[in-house]
Structure formats: C-alpha cells, structure tokens
C-alpha cells in the first residue's frame, strides 16, 4: 500500500549571508490514509518548517536542500510552482496558528471561501457558495448564510478558526496540516476546536498532521507522534507508547512538564535551559547540555533514530544504544 505521505531524509536550509542554516536535518516519517500524527516540540524545534515544507511553502530564504516528499506516491517536492498549486489547498490543506491573522481583513468570508473552490474546480459562483455554506455548517457555525457576507473582524477568534477549518475542508483534501491550530484561542474554545478537527478527520478519513507543543492535545487526537528537537526527530512512535513510557530524556521532560489533573499545588517540572538557536547547535546530541543523563559520547556523536525490536517506536539517544 502506498503511504498517504512519505517524507524521506528531508533537509531544509535557510540561505543567509553568513552561510546556510540547517533548520531541518534529515526528517523521516510516513503517514497512512486517515492517520493522525502529532509533530511535537518547543518553539524553534523546526516543527512548523517541517509542516510547511511538505507543501513547499517555506518562508524565504528557506528551501528544501535535499530529501523527498512523496504524496500518494508522487514526488511533490519536485513539482514546479504551477503543479504545486494543484496540491496546495486542494489535496493538502493547511490550518494556520492565529485565526486573527490568517484571514484577509479586506475580503468577506464568502469571497475567501469561493475563491478557494474556484481555484481548483470549474464550478459556478453559485455552486461554490453552496459548497461554502455546506462546509460552514459542517464546522457548526451559526447562521452560515450570514457569515458569507461578513468580514473577518466581525467574527470572534473561535469562529474565525472554524471558518479557517471550513476553508481547509472545501476541496475535500486527503491531508490536513494544522500548525498549532488552537494555540491562539481561549482555553475553553481550544477543546471545542480540537474535538471538531478530530471529528472531521474521522468522518472523512482525512490524514492529519498536528503541529503543536502541547503533548496533552496530541495524546487525545493523534495515533502517532514525532518529537522534534533542534531540527531532528528525537523520538517517534505510537502516541500511547510514547506518552505512557517516553524514552528520550527530552520527551520525558516534556511529559513531566504537563500539569497533572487532581493533585495540584506542586511546582511544575521544567526542562532546564533553552532550545539552542539554529546558529549554535551543540555538537553531538543537540540536547546534551540540558540532559541530566548526558554522557561523554553525547558530546561527540549525534545519535541516530533506531528501534530495539521490543518497544514500539524509534528513539535517538545514546542511553538506549548501550543496552542494544
């Protein structure tokens, strides 16, 4: 069976005057049709870059330096712009982080929906509006007919994100990439929007790549996880296995940093130090300066992802290499 998405050794660099910066350093993962995956990590880990590089929409001066992205068996990373346009917003949709910024302030919701449909399908405006209405009701927006004539500033943040989700559904894509879709929303609305996204993906058997720093959200929605650190995947595998028994010290730290329900009162765990800047990634394992288990080898050799054949998933850490 061909994978829905197959990312192979993807390297993304940013061309700067001082030389090229590596933002993604050889990323590999696959996604089956209807599968939901979480890309997790702190800000600057490269998870958004990974998401955008799938549809080759990395902000300048970023570019794909090597590696391939296969979508339904086609190598879309080699597509020229005009061919890529057929994929973007059509077969792969994106949901952006901040719904306040995502919608064009001077165009009505209707215009922004209809143009998307008409960019990919030969349909009349009337028919396009019907599709738009249908998708708006699918995301449970009240009086969808009225919304079509409204401007983004007339809607609340939660409603705008619903509109953005509706836009991503317009062309019935087989994959949705959601870049921190709930980060900019109120906590109460976050859960609603997340539940909606999950429901929609299940109903239409859509694949989902959920980019987030929130492991809690990921564990509720996704089937597998890739944890990123400084441009690399440091651990990946089934969500359940990783959340219940994280192996990489970084993943362990992230999970310990989650607030636990019930008890309360105690201080939250935090991982000491900060994610290194892309210009000064430490040699060896990029995480070693923050790692409490750091050994000599961690400072010298970059660990590769590997599986031990017993535990599901892969981890890139020398701790487990010893026991191999």
């Amino acid at each position, binding site marked *: 069976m061909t994978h829905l998405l197959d990312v192979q050794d993807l390297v993304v660099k940013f061309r700067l005057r001082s030389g090229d910066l590596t933002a993604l350093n050889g990323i590999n993962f696959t996604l089956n049709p209807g599968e939901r995956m979480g890309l997790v990590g702190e800000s600057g880990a490269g998870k958004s870059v990974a998401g955008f590089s799938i*549809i080759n*929409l990395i*902000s300048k001066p970023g570019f794909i330096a090597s590696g391939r992205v296969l979508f339904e068996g086609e190598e879309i990373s080699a597509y020229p*712009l005009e061919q890529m*346009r*057929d*994929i*973007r*917003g*059509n077969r792969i*949709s*994106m949901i*952006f*982080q*901040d719904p306040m*910024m*995502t*919608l*064009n*302030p*001077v*165009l*009505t919701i209707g215009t922004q929906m209809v*143009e*998307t449909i008409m*960019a*990919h399908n030969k349909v009349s405006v009337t028919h396009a509006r019907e599709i738009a209405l249908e998708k708006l009701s699918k995301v449970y927006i009240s009086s969808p007919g009225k919304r079509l004539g409204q*401007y983004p*500033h*007339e809607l609340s943040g939660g409603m705008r994100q619903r509109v*953005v989700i509706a*836009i991503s559904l317009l062309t019935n894509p087989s994959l949705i990439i959601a870049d921190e879709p709930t980060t900019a929303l109120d906590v109460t609305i976050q859960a609603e929007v997340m539940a909606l996204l999950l429901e929609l993906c299940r109903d239409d058997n859509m694949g989902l790549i959920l980019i987030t720093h929130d492991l809690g959200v990921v564990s509720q929605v996704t089937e597998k996880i890739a944890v990123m650190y400084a441009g690399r995947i440091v651990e990946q595998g089934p969500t359940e296995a990783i959340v219940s028994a994280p192996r990489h010290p970084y993943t362990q730290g992230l999970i310990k940093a989650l607030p636990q329900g019930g008890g309360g009162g105690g201080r939250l765990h935090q991982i000491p130090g900060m994610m290194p800047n892309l210009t000064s990634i430490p040699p060896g394992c990029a995480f070693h300066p923050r790692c409490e288990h750091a050994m000599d080898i961690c400072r010298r050799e970059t660990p590769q992802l590997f599986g031990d054949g017993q535990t599901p998933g892969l981890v890139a850490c020398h701790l487990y290499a010893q026991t191999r």
Partner: protein
Amino acid sequence: MFAFIIRRVLQAIVVMLIISFIGFALKQNVGDPVRELTGISVSAAERDAIREKLGLNDPFLIQYGRFLKGAVLEGNIGQSFFYKKPAMEVIINKAPATLELVLVCSFLIVVLSIPMGIYSAIYPRRFMSRMIMGFSTIGVSVPIFLIAILLIYVFSIKLGWLPSYGRGQTVDVWGWESGLFTIDGLKHLLLPSTALTALMLPLFIRLIRSEMMEVLETEYVKFAWAKGLPRMRIWFVHAFKNTLLPVITVGGVQIGTMIAFTILTETVFQWGGLGFLFLEAVERADTSLLVAYLIFVGVIFVVVNTVVDIIYGLVNPMVRITGRK
C-alpha cells in the same frame, strides 16, 4: 456608510470655517484696505468716514461674521486690488490651468506608480526593480526647478520638440478653459506635467513597494498561497487591496503638497495658473487675492481629503464599523 459620509462632511465644514477664520485674520492684520482704496489725496476725516461706512470699526468678530455671510451667500471674499475684480473670480479664471496640471499628474502617478511599485515589491532583486529604485532615489533628491530647467534645456532648446512656456492653444469647454483637447495644448502640458510627476512619482513608488513588501509577508498572504490560489489573484486581490489602505491616506495629503509644488512648476514654465497668480499676488501685496487663494486651496484640500476618507472607508471594512459609533 451614510452616517460616515455625513460625519466626514460635517468635519470638512468645520475645517473650512477654521481656514476662513485664519484667512480673514491675515487680511485684517496685513495692510489697510482704506489706504489701498483711497490713495494719498484723501483727508483723515474722510478716511474715517469711509472706515465707518465699510464697517471697519466694528469688532473683529462682527466683521468676520459679515465676511462669512458674504462668502457663503454670494461667494464674495473680497476684491482684488490689482485686477479690480472679485478675488474669487480671478481665482476661478486661473484655476483650470492648475487643476489640469494636477489632474494630468495625478493620472500619470496612479498609472505609473502602481505597476512599478508592485513589480519592484514582488521581484525586489531583479534588475528592473533596482533600476526603478535607483531612478526614484534620484527623483526624490533632485529639486523640481532643476528637473524643469533640465527638461526645458533638452526638449525645448536642444531638440526644439516642445514649447518651453505658456499653455498654448486652449478651448472653452462649458466655461472651463482647457488645453487638453488641442494638440498644441497637450504639447505645452507635457513638460510641466513631466516635471511635477517626476517629483511626486518616486514617493509613491517607494510607498507602494514598501507597503506591498510588508503585506506579502503577512500570514493571510501565506495562507492564500497555502490555499493554492493563482498568483495573480494573491498579488492583485489579496496583497494589493491591503497595500492600498496606507497609500490612499498618503495620496490624499500629497495632492495638497502637489498643489503647493505647482507654484514652482508654474513659475518655471510661465504657466498661467494659480501658483503663478499666487506669486504675483505676493509681489503686489494683493491681500484679498492671497486670502482667496488660501481659501480656494483649502477647499480643494478638504474636498480631496473627504473623498479620500470615503474611498478609504469603501476599501477598508473596519472603518465602516467605527464610523457608526
């Protein structure tokens, strides 16, 4: 929207009242109308009588009220000492020349700056963009009279293609003395409008370029790319419509500046318009004419800015909401 327009018009009226007040105060404090009316062979007693008759001894505000009444009801804002005609009439006779110049320049600026600005924003590294930016730097830094004199030197004196001064042949179009409908008139218009455009164009190219570059970096433009829209639609609908907002604002103010720069242009090209008239009036201390010029330019300024605000409201949906407050 209707309430918004009404509000803007009311504001415009307030601004006009303030301008007329300043104009009137100037007139009151510069020169003595009686001396200018009578000359030296009139006795002091007779002067006082004339003064009393003209109401010049009344309190300032009463005189201002009378001035305002005359201005609003009869369009009378005083007599030009030099032309011996109502100042407004003199102004209106000369206005077409200046307005045509400004109109042609505005047209040229809109037609040239938008494509050039957009092009150099989309392809900032291309050779053409660098050329456009280079020339606009020169345009910004060279004073207008230098451009004007250079144009005259090259096209009138050396090449002899175009006339160097005057308006040429004009036709009367419903009382509007226009040079736009004769070949000769257009030929005369070419150099002055080029000079004035060369001065204003770079500013607009740079403004459109920098605004457009900023807009192209926004999330909603990125989202438009992610939606797979055709790039023409992204550039001209998504990006340009947002670029327009600040450009419209600056454009409104710059039309006023352009009228001020017509003074220099018209002087160099002996263009018989308002700017030329204004300089003459200054030399002759024709205060009524100066006040009339001030008020006339004020009216144009206010009308243009009101129109600009209304257009802004049409482009920017958020203004319409606040307008209802």
